[in-house]
């Protein structure tokens, strides 16, 4: 079976030494910063910074390539959609109109629109490396602990962790059930008509749901028998204390957010207008 996508990749790097909570907090701070600002200069700096961080983590691009391409395709679709539904958004924002060429009907490509969409693309790109790092450089057992640390109740945090941990099991169940049903002649391949295929898929889904319910029952018994949910709080075996690196990382991320705010004040809004 193929390796799970976006699973933990073990490496020896400063990024990996940071605690899961730090990585989560940094990811959130960076996301806020780059969601707030449309300032091209700041976005470019965040992008460069996050690419450098990605390099530092020693994660190979090929390990995450599939996901990156997947996101890029969506980014492209997103850009097309923005242009289709709001072709003069940039003109409105920047208060100017410089036509480049006319397409069809009401659609004319303007410099302002291109610049606006370039900024949006930059926003996404600058945050992708950070998000990927959080996913592949945080040990899964630290997920729950780090969620709990930033204030999510430990029961909720555990629900997330358990869900993640069951993905491979449910996948295996799915393969087994699909195997059994196909061996009965229930065809799921492209040879069948679509309507029939959808109907056939229910022959997998129902048993899958029932077997998953069985799993849930067993695990919740096992958890209660070992006193889960007894106290308001719990300790974590895999939790790590904050070190210097963690404070530095959070400091840097906070600085970026502060800069984003300052730029907003200086620019008199979220947008940086080079056309003035």
């Amino acid at each position, binding site marked *: 079976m193929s390796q799970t996508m976006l699973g933990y990749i073990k490496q020896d790097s400063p990024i990996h030494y940071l605690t899961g909570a730090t990585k989560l907090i940094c990811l959130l701070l960076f996301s806020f910063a780059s969601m707030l600002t449309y300032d091209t200069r700041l976005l470019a700096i965040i992008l460069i910074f996050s690419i450098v961080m990605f390099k530092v983590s020693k994660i190979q691009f090929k390990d995450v390539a599939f996901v990156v391409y997947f996101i890029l395709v969506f980014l492209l679709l997103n850009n097309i959609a923005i242009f289709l539904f709001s072709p003069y958004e940039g003109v409105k924002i920047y208060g100017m109109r410089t036509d480049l060429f006319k397409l069809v009907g009401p659609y004319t490509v303007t410099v302002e629109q291109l610049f606006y969409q370039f900024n949006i693309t930059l926003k996404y790109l600058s945050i992708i490396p950070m998000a990927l790092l959080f996913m592949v450089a945080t040990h899964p057992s630290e997920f729950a602990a780090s969620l709990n640390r930033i204030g999510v109740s430990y029961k909720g945090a555990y629900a997330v962790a358990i869900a993640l941990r069951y993905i491979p099991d449910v996948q295996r169940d799915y393969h087994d*059930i699909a195997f059994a049903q196909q061996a009965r002649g229930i065809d799921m391949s492209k040879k069948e008509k679509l309507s029939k295929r959808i109907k056939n898929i229910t022959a997998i889904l129902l048993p899958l749901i029932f077997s998953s319910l*069985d799993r849930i029952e067993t695990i919740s018994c096992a958890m209660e028998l070992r006193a889960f949910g007894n106290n308001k709080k719990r300790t974590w075996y895999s939790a790590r204390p904050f070190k210097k690196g963690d404070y530095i990382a959070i400091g840097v991320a906070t600085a970026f957010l502060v800069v984003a705010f300052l730029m907003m004040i200086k620019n008199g809004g979220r947008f940086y207008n080079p056309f003035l």
Partner: protein
Amino acid sequence: MKKPVIEFKDFNFQYNAQAKPTLKHINLTIYEGEKVLIVGPSGSGKSTLSNCINGLVPFYYEGEITGSLLINGKETKNSSIFELSNEVGTVLQDPDGQFIGLTVAEDIAFKLENDCVPQEEMKERVRKASKLVEIDNQLESAPHSLSGGQKQRVNLAGVMIGDVNILLFDEPLASLDPATGKTAIELIDELQKKTGKTIIIIEHRLEDVLHQEVDRIIVMDEGTIISDTSTEELLGQSLLKDTGIREPLYITALKYAGCRVISEMKPQRIHTLQVESCKDQLVTWYADQSKELIEEKAEVILEFDKVSFGYNPQKEILKDISFKVYKGEMLSIVGKNGAGKSTLSKLVCGFFKPTKGRILFEGKDMIEDTIKERAQKIGMVMQNPNQMISQNMIFDEVALGLRVRGIGEEEVTKRVNETLKVCGLYPFRNWPISALSFGQKKRVTIAAILVLRPEMLILDEPTAGQDFKHYTEIMEFLKGLNQQGMTIIMITHDMHLMLEYTDRAIVVSEGQKVADDLTTYILTDEETINKAYLKKTSLYELALKVGIDEPRAFVKCFIDYDRRMRL
């Protein structure tokens, strides 16, 4: 006088969803440091009894309790599941399903985490507990990547760490191969000797548990305790047989020969058994039984011709496997978990293509046949019926395979009814499947395959999790099908199953075929047994003990006689 740790006093329990009480007038006292085995057929209430001890009843599965149950002197109904978890540690049946942590260390620490134990103390205690069960070199591994035996050690460490003084094992052998099961029983015994904890084991594989001594055996049936006595005592009675629990095979053999099993013979284990007094009877009995001839081989239906398979060329899961299956045969494929048994069945059904070699069905290479085409000839039945059933009504479930093939409703009705009659399910045809027992569901899944009229059936662990009664029921049904000409292959690690119902077995280990022989030979051959993680049958040792010259023939003779007696 020993201190009682568990005291049931006129205890009754009724689940909220049920009309009748599941436990009736239970009076039972278990003392500190005792090792007690609880046996009983499915539905006898033995699991409910264990759930009362660990608090799942009534705090997780709700219901009404009358009478009293004291654990360490405290009434359980006024307690909570959490409080009880400090007294009783439970190891559940399915080792995979109860893993919570993502690494071994975390899983072991889970109880301590919930008790808010500081991290440093936690690490120290995890180290100690893991050392006790000898899993301390695997602390960073993912629990799922371990072998069956190691998984059980992790489960054990996880309950031991809470410093409980009662350990409860709910069918600890159910998902282990025979050799690993043997080590598990030894491990439990060793732990008890080291720590002096009270141990309660719930199991129906009596012979396997008795591999190490227990102090008392409690027999349950229909919600009551019908016997509470020592092993020697119990084995001498006919109680086990009457309640549908399988006695150790050597005991059955002695009884068939007309010997009286008494406690002086030390019958609890084959190694301690004194057979002098009944040697003659046994030898005479054996001489009386006529030897059966091995039937002549019919034509070949399925053939593996030097088949290799791997997901990538560097790592082959199956290496150069060749064997033949004859028409009308009943054959076992055995080997420990992960040996490549299920890959074998996936190759036959066409989910994977061999990287080398050919698979021939009735002499024709199947390489071009699609999964659907192969399904016409070869039916595959999964271990867990819940993984196959997708309809609400029995009739619809069985009809599904025909309907997707676009067969007319009239023909469907005819064939489904025919099949349901063969499977003894016709009276239930309009029942919802949810109303059936596990064994009946299994039968529905077999019917759903049979209706397609395959020439061969492959079953994955057909009797897993079944008690002796249902085991016999399912297997006799399959035997009946076999006698009507169906070729049947069973993938299993149940030794009794392979010995009793199949003449020949193919043993797979590390992706290679290590044996292809009569089952009586396989289960008496040291080398094969070790490779496939099997266990030598106690019948063989009994035969050696009384000095029968052909112990293998004795084993075969017993099996045939025993099956006739049970029908």
